[in-house]
């Protein structure tokens, strides 16, 4: 047992750190550090910088642009990007539909889509949740029927993240209503420009526009856009959600936020002293740091265990990462609320491009994102399989209850 990184792993970390430092545009980094949302252009620009280096989809098979890195290297890579203030990659392409396509898709689908995902030439979004199918995802009602050599899709998806930018959506649709609900679902790729696709924004409680409703009204899709076999879509969805949980601990992001908390708490004075000198605040901060340190170790253990697991099968321990990772992210956003104090109050809608807002901010210039971040992060214990669903997975898959 040796929990330290090897010299090679440390050298790799330096290499990644150095690359981020010299290649991440300052304007993008500033947005991330300040807790603002990166725009589409920011994510595209950064993904292309990574792709030029051959690092935009490092976890993929080598023939499709992967790097062949070890699980530990991948962890270091993600951690460094998160800590370095890089925007997160568009997971819907790189971590969701990409792996489904290279694992279950046809050769033509692989050739057509994978390089465009790696270079973010296509912006993907996820058509899973529906108004009546959240935690009970398999209860979805959107249908795809074969008609005249095409799929015809009807129904509604919701909580579709960044669909306003999307070129493509991967959709779970019911293709057989006569069998057990999990056994009548197919996984279909849909061009967002198809007639009959409508995107409607949902504003979330932080005031932001991250999610949407997507409507399908007799949308016609070529048969070849079915991934894998008809009615096997639930298996692909489970595979995808297992992958989603692996990155979900967000250790690097929480680390970066804790560093920022220390920084701001040292600078910002309201009342008689900087927040960092308040013993109660320091105890709360230390308690979150302990949880995060433990989570970081737990994540390393899960990754080390990957060697002994069947490839492609999600580890139920990743549910532990999801629960703790989301709780810690939320706890860090609460600590930021403690730091900012009364100037959390003013609501100032986000300045996506600097020109639109010519007035100076109300209060400290870093304060305006703090309450929205706190509100926004309530989502992390809901999405990707709510924490209650994760507890159900642990009860069944780990404890056999």
């Amino acid at each position, binding site marked *: 047992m040796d929990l330290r990184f090897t010299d090679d792993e440390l050298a790799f970390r330096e290499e990644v750190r150095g690359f981020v430092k010299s290649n991440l545009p300052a304007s993008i980094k500033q947005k991330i550090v300040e807790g603002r949302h990166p725009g589409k252009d920011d994510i595209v620009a950064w993904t292309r910088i990574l792709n030029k280096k051959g690092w935009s989809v490092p976890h993929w098979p080598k023939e499709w642009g992967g790097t062949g890195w070890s699980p530990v290297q991948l962890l270091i890579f993600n951690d460094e990007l998160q800590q370095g203030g890089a925007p997160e990659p568009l997971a819907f392409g790189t971590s969701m539909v990409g792996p489904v396509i290279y694992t279950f898709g046809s050769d033509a689908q692989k050739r057509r889509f994978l390089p465009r995902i790696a270079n973010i030439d296509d912006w993907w979004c996820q058509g899973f949740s529906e108004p009546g199918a959240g935690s009970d995802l398999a209860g979805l009602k959107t249908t795809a029927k074969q008609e005249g050599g095409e799929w015809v899709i009807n129904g509604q998806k919701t909580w579709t993240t960044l669909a306003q930018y999307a070129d493509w959506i991967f959709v779970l649709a019911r293709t057989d209503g006569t069998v057990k609900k999990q056994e009548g679902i197919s996984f279909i790729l849909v061009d967002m420009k198809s007639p009959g696709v409508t995107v409607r924004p949902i504003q979330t409680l932080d005031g932001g526009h991250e999610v949407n409703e997507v409507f399908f009204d007799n949308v016609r899709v070529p048969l070849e856009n079915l991934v894998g076999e008809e009615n096997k879509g639930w298996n692909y969805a489970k595979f995808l959600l297992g992958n989603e949980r692996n990155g979900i601990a967000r250790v690097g992001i929480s680390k970066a936020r804790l560093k920022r908390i220390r920084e701001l708490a040292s600078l910002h004075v309201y009342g008689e002293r900087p927040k960092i000198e308040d*013993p109660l605040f320091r105890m709360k901060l230390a308690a979150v740091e*302990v949880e995060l340190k*433990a989570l970081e170790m737990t994540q390393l253990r899960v990754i080390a265990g990957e060697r002994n697991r069947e490839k492609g099968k999600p580890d139920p321990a990743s549910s532990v990462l999801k629960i703790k990772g989301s709780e810690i992210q939320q706890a860090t956003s609460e600590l930021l609320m403690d730091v900012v104090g009364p100037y959390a109050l003013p609501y100032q809608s986000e300045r996506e491009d600097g020109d639109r807002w010519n007035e100076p901010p109300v209060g400290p210039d870093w304060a305006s994102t703090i309450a929205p971040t706190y509100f926004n992060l309530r989502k992390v214990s809901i999405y990707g399989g709510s924490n*209650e669903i994760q507890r159900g997975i642990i*009860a069944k898959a780990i404890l056999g209850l």
Partner: protein
Amino acid sequence: MNFDLTEEQQLLKDSVTRLLADRYSFENRKTFQASPDGWSRDLWRQYAEIGLLGVAFSEADGGFGGGPVETMLISEAFGKALALEPYLATIVLAGGLIRRGGDAEQRAALIPSIASGELLLAFAHAERQSGHDLFDVGASAKKDGASFVLNGEKGLVLHGDCADKLIVSARSAGARRDKAGIGLFLVDAKADGVSRRGYPTQDGMRAAEVTLTNVRVEPKDVLAANGDALPLIERIVDEAIAASSAEAVGAMSEALDMTVDYLKTRKQFGVPIGSFQALQHRASDMVVALEQARSMMMLATMMSAEENAAERRKAISAAKVQIGRSARFIGQQSIQLHGGIGMTMEYKLGHLFKRLTMIDILFGDADYHLERLSKSDGLIG
């Protein structure tokens, strides 16, 4: 980075697990606990035979050259079985002080008989007023020629009632709460001026209050006479925290296993109670708490050997916080999910809960270590 055990470590783990599975049923434990010593001399000999008592000492000193990982494996198994023997007191605490603080002659004189199971030791350090502060030492060591004369009272000396020798901390200089001026002295438990009052602790282990009245210590029995023993004491207590963290993880995993078995077999309303979602989710939260604790046990194990004292103490405090919190949650919830049977003296579960509760208090509870950590420059570098 790897979490793999060496072949020897795996063998050690298997042999201690097998021995305890054969010999340490909960019924047997009750018998051991009711005996005059409060634990089993027979099993102590067997621990020595399979190498558990000597493994942490270097080969040059008469041990088997193991380290913190071996101690972790043994402690975790002891925690699962709720073993009563004086392993923490003799091997980890007092043995550690000799291993790191003894001179060549002292090591040669003591370690072989510790490893063979013949010599029992205890560390007489805490005092009634000291709380968790390791530097708070009121007992005095007055120089008399080349010898020292000890006076004072020591409390909560783990397994101090059965020890053949005590390692006593006493002050040769400075005021009670000064960090400098503390020395360590090897004292025969039956020496003139030593009186002991042994008693059981809440978790079924043993301890003693020790009074020292003009106890004479010869120069050869002085471990750290230059009055600078605090860093050594802190270091060994950190090792003991790592070991007791592993013991706690063993006890937590046993409590969780028992709880899950119970949820699967106990029927109410015509179905196993484990089919109820409220109970499933509670059990899942126990899994999360256990995994976080296990991670910090490993961190504590590795960091207990860290030479940089500030970094070591931060990691150890962090582990103590996590272990204390997880232990409290798992202990309380395992009783709750068992219902009435969990409340009974005859059933093992309550004893796991009591041991977990005592481990949290030992060497500083979760709040004490959280406060200490909160005064540092932070854990996330």
